[in-house]
């Protein structure tokens, strides 16, 4: 009972605002430490690849970014659905805060994928299953952001966004499967453009550390953005009034 109470306590915007504010610096520290460790191992411990040379080291941001882009979409759809089902304002705000970061990671996955593909396979862009699916995922993110932005009524925007995010989440496996199918039909023997080299132990460790670093970063930025959204939406309330007065006095 006490656990449930405490869980729902933080569903209140002012309490979340305070808690998030306290946690954000720690997430930044974690992101920096994990990132430094991951990059150290990735660049100084992991050996040069026999086929791809040092170009393969892009993998240490490409794969974590791709993973984050997919995870954040599911998390976004989850919180949006919670916000819709339980009429929980804060959940909807978190969903909106997740979208730009997810889109950013998707773009980084695409950008790093292209820069990896050029020296390895000869072209800047290859229509392989993974990159094409990432591109479609970017469109899904942009669609969500465009929809919630276009609807002026906040509650309607949150709900419509939630429906779209859930429909998108359900479709992602179908889209991925159909793109894989399409890819094998048309490319025949061509190997995936972003096929990872045979993974040495150090490479895996570096990738894992970078993924955790990106995760910590995502927490930090998404919490920051949620706090901004909370203030935007709760402008009229007393607690925000006290907050800006206290900060104005500083």
């Amino acid at each position, binding site marked *: 009972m006490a656990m449930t109470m405490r869980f729902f306590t933080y569903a209140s915007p002012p309490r979340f605002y305070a808690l998030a504010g306290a946690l954000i610096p720690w997430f930044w520290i974690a992101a920096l430490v994990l990132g430094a460790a991951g990059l150290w191992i990735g660049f100084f411990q992991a050996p040069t690849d026999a086929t791809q040379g040092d170009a393969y080291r892009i993998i240490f941001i490409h794969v974590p970014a791709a993973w984050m882009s997919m995870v954040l979409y599911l998390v976004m759809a989850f919180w949006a659905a919670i916000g819709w089902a339980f009429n929980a304002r804060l959940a909807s705000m978190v969903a909106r805060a997740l979208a730009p970061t997810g889109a950013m990671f998707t773009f980084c996955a695409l950008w790093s994928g292209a*820069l990896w593909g050029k020296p390895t396979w000869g072209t800047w862009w290859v229509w392989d299953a993974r990159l094409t699916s990432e591109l479609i995922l970017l469109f899904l993110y942009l669609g969500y952001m465009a929809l919630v932005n276009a609807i002026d009524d906040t509650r309607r925007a949150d709900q419509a966004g939630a429906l779209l995010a859930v429909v998108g989440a359900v479709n992602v496996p179908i889209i991925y499967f159909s793109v894989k199918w399409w890819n094998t039909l048309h490319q025949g023997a061509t190997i995936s453009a972003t096929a990872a080299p045979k993974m040495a132990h150090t490479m895996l460790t570096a990738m894992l550390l970078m993924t955790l670093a990106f995760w910590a970063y995502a927490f930090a930025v998404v919490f920051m953005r949620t706090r901004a959204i909370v203030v935007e939406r709760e402008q009229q309330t007393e607690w925000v009034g006290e907050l800006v007065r206290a900060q104005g006095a500083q």
Partner: protein
Amino acid sequence: MNWNSAGEFFAMGGYGLYVWGAYGVTLVLMLAEPLLVRQRHAEARRAAARTQEES
């Protein structure tokens, strides 16, 4: 250690443009994003202060 000098490190076996192009853009975005969010937060607080004054 994989490299014998800083020069080698930046050259990345000839792939420097690609590796640093990828890392560079990612880093820029991951610096710009929190800065933009901080700006948004500050603007929100300013707007809230104005709204609170009017009421």
